[in-house]
């Protein structure tokens, strides 16, 4: 009997161990970054961050200079505001459009929907780099380059295929009978979408919002291409990358900068995380 319990318990232990190791492996670089961000530049140049671990309580070896230097650079507030503007628009628009499209593709019956869905999913394999020059040309024609509206549209375009794919999978798992019943009760398509599909898919929407928010918040390349880097419109990622000189001088400031820019995504993640876990399951398992 003891042996049986052990047999049942053993895989659990192994799984826990593997998870623990994976967590440590992923966490280690971040920990190193965190410690480095609190060390003076002169220490960073000579010794690795792990040397701190031999006497972690010696507080004289830590400094908040890096954080002070980053936060006191001009234009930080503007950069935060720009990042928020870009990210909110770049998240709300694609999630809203994707929910409409995914609902239509999974719950409305029309002829070529399999074809359209396939076409959209196919877009996932197009590398965004391929689109830069043609889209930028178009933007110059419409004078959209250098505007937030233009950037929202771009992020919407790049985000839609995955968003539709994810929400479609989720809507598919909702039983058709529910929608048929609503239909028989006289609900229009719009009503079933707003009153039935949306409330039921909050977990999926929440996780999609997290994905899209993180992607847009951390984006540097797309913003550089379509927005240009001058300070009145530059998001946080761009402002932070310009802390470093052309030969990589002052890179120690980037460690502090990385943590400052992580604060917002962390807040978003933790406030939505209870939906996040459910949401990932939501698309995969029929309930």
């Amino acid at each position: 009997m003891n042996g049986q319990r052990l047999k049942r318990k053993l895989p659990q232990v192994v799984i826990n161990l593997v998870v623990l190791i994976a967590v440590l492996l992923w966490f280690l670089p971040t920990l190193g970054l965190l410690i480095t961000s609190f060390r003076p530049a002169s220490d960073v140049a000579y010794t690795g961050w792990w040397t701190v671990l031999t006497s972690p309580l010696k507080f004289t070896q830590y400094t908040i200079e890096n954080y002070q230097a980053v936060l006191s650079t001009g234009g930080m507030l503007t950069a935060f505001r720009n990042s928020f503007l870009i990210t909110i628009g770049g998240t709300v628009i694609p999630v809203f459009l994707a929910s409409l499209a995914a609902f239509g593709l999974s719950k409305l019956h029309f002829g070529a929907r399999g074809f359209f869905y396939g076409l959209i999913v196919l877009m996932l394999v197009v590398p965004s780099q391929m689109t830069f020059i043609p889209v930028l040309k178009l933007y110059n024609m419409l004078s959209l380059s250098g505007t937030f509206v233009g950037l929202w549209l771009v992020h919407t375009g790049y985000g839609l295929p995955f968003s539709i794919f994810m929400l479609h999978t989720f809507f598919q798992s909702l039983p058709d009978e529910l929608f048929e019943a609503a239909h028989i009760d006289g609900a229009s398509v719009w009503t079933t979408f707003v009153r039935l599909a949306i409330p039921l898919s909050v977990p999926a929407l929440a996780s999609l919002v997290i994905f899209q928010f993180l992607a847009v918040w951390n984006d540097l390349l797309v913003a550089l291409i379509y927005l240009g880097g001058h300070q009145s419109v530059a998001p946080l990622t761009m402002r932070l990358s310009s802390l470093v000189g052309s030969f990589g001088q002052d890179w120690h400031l980037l460690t502090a900068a990385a943590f400052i820019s992580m604060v917002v995504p962390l807040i978003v993640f933790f406030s939505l995380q209870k939906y996040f876990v459910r949401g990932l399951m939501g698309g995969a398992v029929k309930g």
Partner: protein
Amino acid sequence: MKRSLFVVFSVLLVLALSLGASAQGVVTMMGVWGGQELEAFQEVMEAFTAKTGITVQFEGTRDLPTLLQTRIAAGNPPDVAAIPGPGAMKEYVEQGALVDLNGVLDVDTLTNDVNDAWIELGTYKDGLYALMFSADIKSLVWYRPDEFAAKGYAIPTTWDEMEALMEQMVANGDTPWAIGLESGAASGWPATDWIEDIMLRTAGPDVYDQWVNHEIPWTDPRVQEAFEIFGKITTNSDYVYGGPITVLATNFGDSVAELFTDPPRAMMHRQASFITSFIRDANPDVEIGKDVSFFGFPMINPEHGNPMLGAGSMIAQFNDNPEAAAFMNFLAGPEAQEIWVNRLGKLGTNNKINPEVYPDDLTREMAELLNQADVFRFDGSDSMPAAVGSGAFWEGTLMYVGGEDLAGVLEFIENVAVDSY
């Protein structure tokens, strides 16, 4: 819930549209500068705005070549950009992207105030396409005068003396060199500077030009010799601190720190003038000029004298409009350059610059060294096509230091070069 979302959204839209509107009297500029460099250039831009009322919108990015190329292809390049070097300039001219500065700048004043070498660097196909805004010199060996004095080391002026000095250091239990080649995606560039410096001195400026223009192949024995002289140092852990593994794994900016440990882990470091900012960052107590100084990279073949390798900020104009022209004229003059060299310790190209503006004696000395050099050559890897100069050449040096066969490495670079010129 939905109504409030709608309100937030409309506010965002209005705000975004109002921000997107562009103003009159604006020059857009793109450059790689960040940190202190950006602050210094901001002062330059402010001086320009105070003088003309035109504002400059500066976009800084370290991915400049990619971004600039995308913008050119899409038809909205910045008015003015600090470009990577003569190689890039030629590519842009071929694409028809640059404005000929002969119609923009006052050429008579320019030829009076600026050395011919700088004008030549910006000249291509009978047009002047780039302005040398400032220069960095690279043929410098950094050392600690106190250590040299204490141990009786003499500053070498020829390569024979350098090799004797290296032997003396090894016999003394010191390590001669500190070298670091890691630099993110640009890893390997410090090695290309070494090889260029050696090449200039063993084969001379003419062969150097042929090499940069790919008129001689990479497998040429003279190129091979330059690699070997460099390899003799980097592959031997007697000559370089930590041996090849440390050389490959150490960041170029951190490697100079080995000179300031107690006792020093290495005696000499070959790097451009900008290394002083790294020294100051890591060792706030070190007084530049007193605790650390430099001597010129020694000559190897007396026939070719003591050439100077350098690089600089080249500025080119992409859009032909009066605001951009005014800005280019301002950058060419002494006033803008005085601000720039004073803040950053770079070397100006305009002879009218007051030497007093250089931040310290060491920089003044460098400016003098630059004026005295028999020959000046721009960083070769910056003058080659990008696939070679900021690709295969970097990679090749890393392969070579990593222990790969030199003939194979040179053949690899040659193959890339054949496709790119």
